[in-house]
């Protein structure tokens, strides 16, 4: 981009310290305060509606469609009900959707139309503060939804292990991976038409990441492709946690999201000025 340029840094400060000083006043807390104040002003219906989406999917597909399907092999080959099979997958998907929505559409809207960030960035806050604060708020919303959905699964008897509680922090890890990457991607977009590409990528990923049926239905070549996608790792990880069955692949799934989060944060950090300082 032509906006990149050489600026003379003051001597005596490390490159990282100087980068942080030019992009942050260490006040991401204020963005979070605003987020909570908005939640307090908001109609609770708006917040609760996000919680119901996966619940409706679970009721319709898990119990409706599940009647026709009966039991299916779960992690480790143990038979489980179809509802128990898809419930963890729906949790992983809703963590992804929430994080992507917050870090792409929401960020883009606040940037281009509400001009919210323009106002924030006219204060002593820097783009790093805004990014950290907004990702925190996205994760907080994700936490609330994961908490609610896990409670629903437990009440419906679809979680058979105490390990199911670990689905809550794992939902946050999945959300962090997608949110960090989503924000970086948003920095390349200028119009709402381009934003639609995100949905075009997400919907098939939801349909084909072994969410609603096992990956073994695909020919092997396609299986490898699906296994490269992040949602598949999220779905498998959640499914293993829901019944407390672990194998070597568990660490691969966790490792995938740790790596994705690190890459996403690094990527967003690099694109921070391109995103906010246009």
């Amino acid at each position, binding site marked *: 981009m032509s906006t990149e340029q050489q600026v003379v840094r003051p001597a005596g400060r490390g490159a990282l310290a100087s980068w942080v000083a*030019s992009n942050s006043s260490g006040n991401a807390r*204020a963005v979070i305060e*605003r987020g909570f104040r908005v939640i307090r002003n*908001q109609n609770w219906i708006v917040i609760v509606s996000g919680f119901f989406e996966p619940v409706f999917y679970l009721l319709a597909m898990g119990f409706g469609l599940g009647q026709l399907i009966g039991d299916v092999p779960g992690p480790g080959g143990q038979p489980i009900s179809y509802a128990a099979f898809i419930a963890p997958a729906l949790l992983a998907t809703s963590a992804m959707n929430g994080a992507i929505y917050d870090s792409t559409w929401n960020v883009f809207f606040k940037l281009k139309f509400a001009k919210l960030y323009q*106002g924030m960035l006219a204060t002593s*806050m820097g783009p790093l503060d805004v990014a950290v604060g907004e990702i925190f708020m996205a994760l907080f919303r994700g936490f609330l939804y994961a908490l609610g959905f896990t409670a629903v699964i437990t009440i419906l008897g679809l979680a058979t292990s105490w390990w199911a509680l670990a689905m809550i922090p794992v939902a946050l890890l999945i959300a962090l991976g997608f949110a960090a990457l989503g924000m970086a991607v948003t920095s390349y977009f200028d119009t709402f038409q381009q934003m639609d590409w995100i949905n075009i990528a997400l919907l098939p990923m939801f349909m084909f990441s072994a969410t609603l049926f096992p990956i073994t239905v695909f020919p092997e070549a396609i299986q490898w492709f699906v296994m490269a996608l992040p949602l598949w790792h999220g779905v498998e990880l959640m499914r293993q946690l829901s019944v407390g069955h672990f194998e070597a692949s568990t660490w691969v799934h966790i490792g995938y999201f740790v790596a994705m989060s690190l890459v996403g944060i690094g990527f967003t950090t690099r694109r921070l000025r391109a995103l906010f300082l246009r």
Partner: protein
Amino acid sequence: MPVIEARELTKIYGEVRAVDQISFEVAPGESFGLLGPNGAGKSTTMRMIGGTSLRTSGTLLVNGLDPEVNGPEVRANLGVVPQQDNLDNELRARENLVMYGRYFGLPYSYLRPKAEELLQFAQLTEKAAEKVDNLSGGMKRRLTIARALINEPRVLLLDEPTTGLDPQARHILWDRLFRLKEQGVTLIVTTHFMDEAEQLCDRLIVMDHGRIVAGGSPAELIRQYSTREVLELRFGSERNASLVDQLRDFGRLEVLPDRVLVYTEDGEAALEAVRHRGLVPVTSLVRRSSLEDVFLRLTGRSLID
């Protein structure tokens, strides 16, 4: 030390040179204007001063610091009023002030009384608990200005502060800005309203296509680039252009679609002479030269198309 020091400041968007090698300084306590039509590069210059738009080349110091390197530090002493109100629609009027102060890292013990003081300054005390969406255009503008004052800035950047306001709201706003100026706040104002520039600015630069075409106090600019008086003649849109040749010897002319401007030291005398020549305008007006005339002279175009 100047509050702002720009040297060869340039911003290029793709192929467009939005700001093209401009240099200027602003002294503490000065009211400084950037005057020009839409697209002249005024807003881009303002955003570069706040460090929210990155320059392509040149140097820029605000209170001795580079806003790209020390953005948070520079903006701690700035108040920014953007061209479009960007109030937080999800917060109420008072909350807008308090939260904005929190973005500066200021404590609630300071912000609570300060917010009340600013609501009063903006004549919005009764609207404190109102949703931003329910405020009128003038109220939103005043709230935006009050918000920019939450950190008691030494420098206030005002981008088209009164665009879209009715005359009464404009005068209230100008009055508030005068008070700040009296308190020693440095005002940097962009505008395409000549009367606003003449009212508010001690000194200004005229920008066109990203470049500075002239600079000085309003009176100096008028003296340098225009005559004392202007005679405006309207012969009807058909005849304006065709009569130009018969008016040439009166002085410099500007032919606009709806009228002919005659630049002269004595407008009444010129009008008399025009009539004497048997040319009868439909309407005529003698007025003092304004910055509008300066701009016309410098660029050949009027400011508001």
